[in-house]
């Protein structure tokens, strides 16, 4: 019983320390060790492949699309979503939604 109590105490202490560390960092600090690229519509694929290398998966196009339209998958990448509260009209009333304004992919 005593061992269990010590184990849980250490575990709780460590996880709270981790959360405190992650939560108290600015984006700049988090990104300090990352290599990121910002997604912009129409970005040249070369920029992505030069940064991240050959994709882990390059599937066949879906039927009904085109051989020119492809998808490429990387595993184990970090995605940063930039969010913002924006006003949205829902019928006659106004509501606020948190929307994504920018995406960065990092390794």
């Amino acid at each position, binding site marked *: 019983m005593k061992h269990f109590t010590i184990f849980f105490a250490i575990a709780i202490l460590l996880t709270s320390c981790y959360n405190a560390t992650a939560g108290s960092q600015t984006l700049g600090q988090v990104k300090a060790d990352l290599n990121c690229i910002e997604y912009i519509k129409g970005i040249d*694929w070369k920029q992505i*492949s030069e940064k991240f290398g*050959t994709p882990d998966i*390059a*599937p*066949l*196009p879906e*039927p*009904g699309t*085109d*051989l*020119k339209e*492809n*998808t*490429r998958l990387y595993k184990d990448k970090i995605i940063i979503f930039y969010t913002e509260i924006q006003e949205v009209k829902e019928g006659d009333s106004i509501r606020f939604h948190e929307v994504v304004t920018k995406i960065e992919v990092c390794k």
Partner: protein
Amino acid sequence: MLSLDDFLREAEGKAKIYKDYRLQADKEITIKLTICIPDMHLLERGPNDDFLDNNPSYEERFLSLLYFLLNLRKEEGENLEIIQLGDMFDLWQAKGNTNMIVEAYPNIIGFIENIKTIYMVGNHDIDLYRWYKDKDETFGRRWRYYSVIEGNLRAIYEYGFQADFANNQGSWTGAIGREITKIVGMMEFVKPDIDIVLGSAWDSIVRSFSKYNNAYTPVKDPEGFNLHEHLKFYIDLMEKYNNGVTFDHFSPADIDLSMAIIAHTHTARLVRMPKNERIY
């Protein structure tokens, strides 16, 4: 319609004749200027990429031709017909599928699409048919295409593996041919020209055996014309069609075939042969 000479003049050196096989047809075979692009064998680049053949200038040269064809398409509209005869992708040697080949050659694939190319399927890209056969998707690839004049079929365009004992994808011999090609493809990482060396060796074996044994080739007595292993297959096919022996939806009145245009041999040749009082 532009004549071949007009085309060459407008191309200003981007296209030229390497071997002149021009012959006068007895009747018109097409009412359009038809440009055929055979066997491109695009891969993800690398030493076994037969399109590039380790020579980056080939890509630039081909791009300048495609750019010219794009402008010609704008001028000529439907009077120009551009047919990619098959094996645009070399899926037998590709590391994956078409996806990373598109990444390797976005310029070429973009141009080819924009010039409204008609695509045939070859034995090296027939997997595009096979992978999607249950989903009825061929990505615009066709088995065969015809030129039609006043309602009559006058010329057949197809890849040509159908006539090839070692590559007919509907037979077990073609399955063996495919595996051999894959092995040769791997050997190209060591010696890039090994495919040409082995291909020439195979041709010389076939040529000597064809005099005695038709098992290696459908050629029978070429009657003094250039030896061509696919000649008899296509002349017989056109004869059959012209006589109405076909399961296709054409009636004999619609068929007046006199020319078959194929790729696959990697060697430009024109063979003219009379049969049953016709010239094919």
